[in-house]
């Protein structure tokens, strides 16, 4: 298990940011760029974002210079956040949790749905260190894909899968990822997306002896390892070889497998 990041104590207080720009990723997903940055954020870490009287929810850090979040409208809180306009405020506490750690020089990134959100931050970091990056993105249909252009323009080799075949190959992103493992022979796989996708990738990587870093989601309340609400179910921990009582907010969200 990784040790705690040393700047966790900074993650406590809410700080107000203003929206400086909004990028429309698709029908339901917007990337908000802010007028500032977080202290020392790593790719894969997250923030708790708060709108007074509406609520507070976790979001991955999409970029930090300037700070950006990619938010998909799935319910009341994310809806209010997706509708923020330039100059509106959003309050954030973070960075929280433990993020990705680049291993080796050939990196395979896999994102399902808005799971792609933290991957461009990771890709930027990997490319800055002169690594090679292949990114696999998947979604139900073409309209749900996000960050395809962003990752391509950064210099990643992109492979896309949609369930209905409206873009890239037809099928699941896990299938494209498996092909990429064979063709690209990465040193490590980094993934973020639905739990089912992560588990399928974990099985596959374990068979191949490929280290994997998987970013999990869970119901977050305190976000700082006190309340227990984000504990990964024990069966999942056993399956992934993680110690029992693994907390997504404190030990994760990124789990190191293999």
């Amino acid at each position, binding site marked *: 298990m990784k040790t*705690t990041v040393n700047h*966790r*104590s900074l*993650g*406590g*207080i*809410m700080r*107000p940011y203003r929206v400086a720009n909004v990028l429309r990723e698709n029908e339901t997903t917007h990337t908000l760029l802010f007028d500032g940055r977080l202290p020392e954020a790593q790719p894969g870490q997250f923030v*708790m974002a*708060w709108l*007074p*009287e509406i*609520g*507070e*929810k976790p979001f991955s850090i999409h970029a930090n210079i300037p700070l950006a979040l990619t938010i998909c409208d799935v319910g009341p809180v994310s809806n209010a956040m997706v509708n923020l306009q330039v100059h509106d*405020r959003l*309050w954030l*506490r973070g960075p929280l949790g433990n993020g990705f750690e680049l291993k080796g020089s050939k990196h395979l990134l896999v994102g399902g749905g808005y799971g792609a959100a933290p991957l461009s931050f990771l890709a930027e970091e990997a490319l800055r260190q002169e690594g090679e990056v292949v990114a696999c993105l998947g979604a139900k249909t073409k309209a749900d894909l996000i960050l395809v252009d962003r990752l391509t323009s950064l210099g990643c080799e992109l492979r896309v899968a949609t369930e209905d075949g409206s873009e890239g190959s037809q099928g699941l992103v896990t299938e494209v990822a498996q092909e990429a493992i064979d063709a690209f022979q990465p040193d490590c796989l980094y993934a973020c997306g639905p739990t089912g996708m992560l588990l399928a990738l974990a099985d596959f990587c374990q068979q191949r002896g490929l280290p994997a870093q998987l970013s999990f989601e869970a119901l*977050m*309340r*305190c*976000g*700082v*390892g*006190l*309340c*227990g*609400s984000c*504990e990964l179910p*024990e069966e999942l*921990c056993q399956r992934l070889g993680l*110690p*029992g*009582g693994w*907390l997504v907010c*404190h*030990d994760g969200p990124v789990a190191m497998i293999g």
Partner: protein
Amino acid sequence: MEASLAADFLGIQMKNPLVVASGILGTSASVMERCAREGAGAVTSKSAGPEPRTGHANPVTLAWNGGVINAIGLTNPGCREEVPLLRETHRRLRALGLPLFASLFAPSVEAFGEVARVIAEAEPDLIEVNISCPNVGSEFGTPFSATAKSAAEVTAVVRKAVKLPISIKLAPNVPEIGRIAQAVVSEGADAVTAINTVPAMLIDAYAGKPVLKNATGGLSGAAIKPVALKAVWEIAQMVSVPIIGTGGISCGLDAAEMIMAGATLVGVGSAVALEGPAVFSRINRELEAFMTQEGYPDLASMRGKALPQK
């Protein structure tokens, strides 16, 4: 010679005096087992009540500069669901040589008895009666910890309902906590836990609004250590039952100070936010080093040292 951290609490032998405070990772057998493996001496489960509760909406917790503020709102699966969870936890803790303390709360005096009877089915080593949560006032009214009379009434009902040892958890925001401790002990409390969080709130100047969804909450962590020390120091002068001294403990010296104020065991909650359950082994290491260096062979030689000499 190395100092011993072994603690004797109501005849229960513990490896060390550190207790996971209620509401801190006490939500599942696996997470409580983790706290045990990472160095706690005993684990308290999250307070369970008569019915399941989802608790308050986010924001529920902020690690604020001086500590933590929370209004979780007593999220719990209800006491009936809690029993199998406690049984499984107890099985795992026993294998590691640790006792389980089960916390409970209720909205009325009578309900405390009913919840205690249900929780007792799991046979925890101690039942901790939370009469002092500051975050459910809008539903439950003034906490029972507010007066000696209401605190004693709850104690009497729980005492009648169960044979297991009971500890009553007191609130700091009262004029004379020692008198309240006296009242609960005279109704049969075997121990006292002090303190719960201090009623508090945060307002964000830019938002012009309270930050917690519940507006108000409870303060814990470093900011309340002096409040907790005073409470325990006063209680220790009024009663002779063991005290689980809780509030703002985050290092070995804090724990030593709490024991010198008269505590037998030391509860640790908010400090877990900064470094996870590994905080327990660090506090133990620091406490042991302090005791060895200062020539305290065991906890008893340190206990109550800061109390006025009779």
